[in-house]
């Protein structure tokens, strides 16, 4: 089975210290005032006495979805789902900074990096992983609320946690369900904030017309091949051109 990198988060452990947010900003040079990850609040009602225990600080970031609407919104193919690892990747060389992907994410996980002027979001810290480290937010988390890894690998911490709790894992339910690969143990806390993916009509049209365009491209390719074949097998009609030299 291919990998599926994901986060399995115990929101009940989060103390909202912002360690993960600070670590991410430093590790990824996230510009001032911009953030790749966050902690949301819910159930924080100051009611004296015995608590209903619904207070949650919910850590989040790009959820590297199964059905990434951001990919659908990207006109250049800069954003794509890496099927080997399950990550949603931004190829910075291809991104034109059009911003289509930003409203296309129902979790507001994307932003336009003010310095690079390109799309930006959580990428699970590939440089750190290459060095054998956890993503910065996971590494730094005081209570280790964030657990990261391949959920298809039962020997990984994330995989073990994922398998053990499979029935009680929840996801943030956005209005557009993208099947996010961020799982929360038990009650994740705030669940009403996931929005609706807004993919530009032009992109939808492009997506609809894609088979047609592909067909056209294929047909034109066939045409070229036919001409080539004709040239190879039927020979040239213009012998005089070469003879003239």
């Amino acid at each position, binding site marked *: 089975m291919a990998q599926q990198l994901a986060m399995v988060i115990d929101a009940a452990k989060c*103390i909202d210290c912002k*360690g993960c947010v600070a670590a991410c*900003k*430093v590790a990824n040079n996230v510009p001032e005032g911009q953030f790749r990850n966050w902690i949301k609040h819910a159930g924080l009602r*100051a009611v004296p*006495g015995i608590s209903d225990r619904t*207070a949650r600080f919910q850590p989040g970031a790009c959820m590297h979805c199964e059905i990434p609407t951001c990919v659908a919104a990207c006109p250049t193919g800069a954003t794509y789902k890496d099927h080997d690892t399950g990550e949603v990747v931004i*190829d910075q060389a291809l991104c034109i900074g059009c911003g289509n992907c930003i409203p296309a994410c129902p979790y507001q996980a994307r932003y336009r990096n003010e310095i690079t002027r390109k799309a930006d979001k959580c990428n699970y810290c590939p440089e750190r992983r290459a060095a054998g480290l956890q993503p910065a937010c996971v590494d*730094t988390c*005081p209570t280790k609320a964030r657990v990261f890894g391949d959920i298809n690998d039962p020997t990984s911490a994330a995989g073990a946690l994922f398998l053990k709790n499979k029935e009680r894992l929840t996801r943030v339910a956005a209005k557009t369900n993208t099947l996010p690969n961020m799982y929360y143990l038990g009650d994740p806390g705030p669940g009403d904030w996931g929005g609706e993916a807004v993919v530009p009509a032009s992109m939808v049209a492009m997506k609809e017309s894609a088979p047609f365009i592909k067909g056209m491209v294929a047909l034109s390719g066939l045409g070229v091949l036919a001409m080539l074949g004709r040239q190879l097998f039927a020979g040239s009609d213009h012998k005089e051109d070469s003879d003239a030299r």
Partner: protein
Amino acid sequence: MSRRDFFRASGLVAAGAVGGPALLGGLAKARAASPAKPAWDSRFSACDMCFNKCGLIARVENGVATKLDPNPKFLKSRGMLCARGNAGLAQVYDPDRLKHPLLRKGARGEGKWQRIPWDEALDMAALKMAEVREKYTPCGHLFTAGSDLQSQFVGRFAEVYGSFNVTSHESLCLVSGSRAFLDTFGEVPFADVLNSRYIMMVGANRFEALVTPDSIDLMTAIRENGCKLVTLDPRYTKTAALSHEWYPVRPGTDMAFMLALAHVIINEKLYDPQWIADKTFGMEQLTAHVRRYTPGFAAEQCGIPAEDIARMARELAAAAPASMVYPGRRTSDYEDSTQIRRSFAIVNGLLGNWDKPGGLLAARQVGLKGVPFDAPWYDENREDRIDAGKVPMMFEHEGSFVVTRDAVLADDPYPIRGWFIYKTNPMGTAPNRRKTMEMMNKMDFVTVVDIAMSDTAWMADLVLPSPSYLERKDPCSGLQGSVACACVVKRDPVIDPLYESRPLFEIMKGIADRMELGEFFDFTIDEYREKQTRDIPEALAVMDRDGVYYNPSKVYGIYEGRIYKTLSKKVELYNQRYEQMGLDPLPNYTPPAPPPDNRFRMVIGRNAMITQSSTANNTLLHQFLPTNTLWLNTEAAGRLGIQDGDLVEVASPVGSQELRAEVTDRIRPDTVFMLSGYNTLSTMQHLSHGNGASINELLDDDFDAITGNASMHTTFVSVTRKVA
């Protein structure tokens, strides 16, 4: 075929459609290249963004530290680094950092400085210190240092210079709590949070005011070990939000609550009689004393239902000895804060949790040794500290800042005219900032060593830049934390010192040389470390390898067969020494004064991104907390016609400030709260200068009658809406 594959297949068409030839190169790439392993060096250090000294690994590329990560082998911090720890680089590379020695040119606090060379700076510091000593005796010079691995050299210098006027930050923080537990158990305990089954969190906010490992262990205990957490706080903090129960206790009534817990435990005989008989002193007196402190009485005082108080007492006792009243740290709250904390200690005594899993732990062997020296004798010196005799049980090594300040202002009993300050910022941390300013103005010469132009540096005569924790070599330090560890850490530079900064040790050495005291600083940090680790010779190499050295010492049962360091040689529920000194041997509850009409009690507190006054100017942390606000209860705000976000004026008997109101249900209607560190005077702290309000400008400077600990919760303020 995915969209991307499609574009790749139909490459030219797509590129033409979206923008042209510039993209062709990019499209030709099969995939975004998988990143290479970064070319960083990993170097160990210990964090210095607060007092916790969590273990870290600095990633350094081409001489530049690019990321700080937790050291997974560092058990005290449980392999974590908080937001402040991550923001260490923003402090190190802060453009506002002090870069070279500065000599004051204009009036004090005017902000006119002249850059001078180091030699001239050290000559001047030595000359001025010699002048003060000549004119006012060695005790005419005050030395103040914050909590740092090099701070001990300030104490050493003061001693060889001849002054016993040394103060620290502690009397603005926790000395009353330390006193209370010391006078009950004979030493100041660590809390075994991790193994506790029931924790009463009163006057502490452990999920926001991070203390390692307690903050982290608290979550593990409640989430994984089934520990129950009950929080009493006038504010609905994050700790309150994550607790099983929260009560917005009326400020200043904690003692009534504790004495009622004791009442129930004793009345219902919920204690271990064997433990009480064998290990404690004064159960009879305590029994008589708490008779009147019924849950009903406490309920009237603290606003927590009597049946809940009784239930909590029973639950605590049922979980004993693996239950506790968490000792807390910042105990600078009331004029009887030592007695308040004594009531905490007494309940722990009744629970019999001392030296046991889930209870309060004794200090362990770390293995480090002191480096003694013989200080010279000065015949002309004074008999005692300037703050001596004003309160009965001060900690000699910490002093009392507020008492010292009053004594300096009054020249009573003798004048102090010189002040040397390292890595602490009384202008930004002590209550009644105007008095600190007056104290500054009284001085002939003030020298401040710091990495940034704090408000204290701003008021100084000579400001000397020191390197940050990532740029210097520090002595070894022993750390303990709960059951986590008894360990030793050191700091080696992970990057070269920036600018002209010089470590405190070299500054002290330089001044000492010029004052013919050089023999007392005639060593290197390496030699000093070797002396410190003489009993654990392997420690230095182990620290090079792991970033930390652990001493495998006993955790529980340290007191088996050992006597307690108290007069009765037992846990003193009833304190005999207090009795001899004419102090209350058992804590007597005095109800706090209610806020006068239209006034609020101001309380202080922490946030996980705040270290007193040293983080408000941090560019990274500033993004989380751009300013401070006044927490004001919704009902009270409605009465005053104040809306969320309105600019308000907060006025106290000592000063007034303006800031935005945060109208919230998360605070009692009779109480207001704001964070510290904002609205600095120093314009060289560009994010905190003129931003928000200074709490020090508002707080009155009352103090605890036993230790001289500042009492930060005794100020009443008025709040009025400012017409924009």
